């Protein structure tokens, strides 16, 4: 399963705070950009890593935001990637 660093960042944010929306993710992370976040979220939802719900009542803007939640598959992918990142960092640490 291939996962990019942006997708990994999104998954970590969604797992930390379920129900987060796109702009909150951009504000919480330096790696995510406003212009591309929604395309990434849409693709991740297509892959089944996230699910989203539209807000019942629209916000100040008059448009309903979508809030994102992790799925079981998303959590599994995140755990696998975290284990890989840790192993890689250990390897780099051992090399140095």
């Amino acid at each position, binding site marked *: 399963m291939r996962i990019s660093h942006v997708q990994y960042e999104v998954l970590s944010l969604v797992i930390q705070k379920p129900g987060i929306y796109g702009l909150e993710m951009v504000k919480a992370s330096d790696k995510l950009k406003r212009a*591309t976040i929604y395309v990434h979220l849409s693709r991740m939802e297509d892959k089944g890593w996230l699910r989203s719900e539209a807000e019942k009542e629209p916000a100040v803007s008059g448009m309903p935001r979508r809030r994102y939640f992790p799925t079981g598959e998303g959590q599994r992918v995140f755990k696998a990637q975290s284990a890989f990142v840790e192993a890689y960092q250990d390897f780099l640490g051992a090399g140095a």
Partner: protein
Amino acid sequence: MKCKCEIAHKKMTMALKIMKLTIYCMIATISISFCFIAFGFFSEATLGFWVSINAVRAGLYLSIFSLTSIIPWMYANRLFAQGRRILGIPNVLYANAPGNFLVKTLGFLMTKKAYEYIVVQIIADHREEHFDSLAAGNFWHAHYVVFRMYAFVVLSLAMALVGNISSAFFSTAIRLFSGK
């Protein structure tokens, strides 16, 4: 049934509108007249060789036009705003929220999913920031946010389109070469 004060308020607003229109017409007439006068005045005999250059002449006309139309128009607007404040008429401007055009056109042209997941979210974010900037009196930033919103919508849609086309292309290529 409408109360007397409401009728008086409507009449006053209408009178102000007519006055404003009259003053705008006067400003336009005066400005055009000045340009005609200048047309007679700007000759080589009066201002020398430089006036014969078209660019210099255009610059002179433009400066006369701005001096005689834009500046009086700005002062007239300010005067009317003050007048409304003195008379107690609220100076409220009703305008569409930014991205209204995008919502109408893209909602019709795009698939429901792409529209709801990408366009609506970008517009919602930028509208919120736009309203915050307006409330803080930061008008230039509010305009910049609207410009950025259009740029981001175009960029995101382009990115989604390129992603869809490339994934379709590669999946077809893999299917063809693997013989499945």
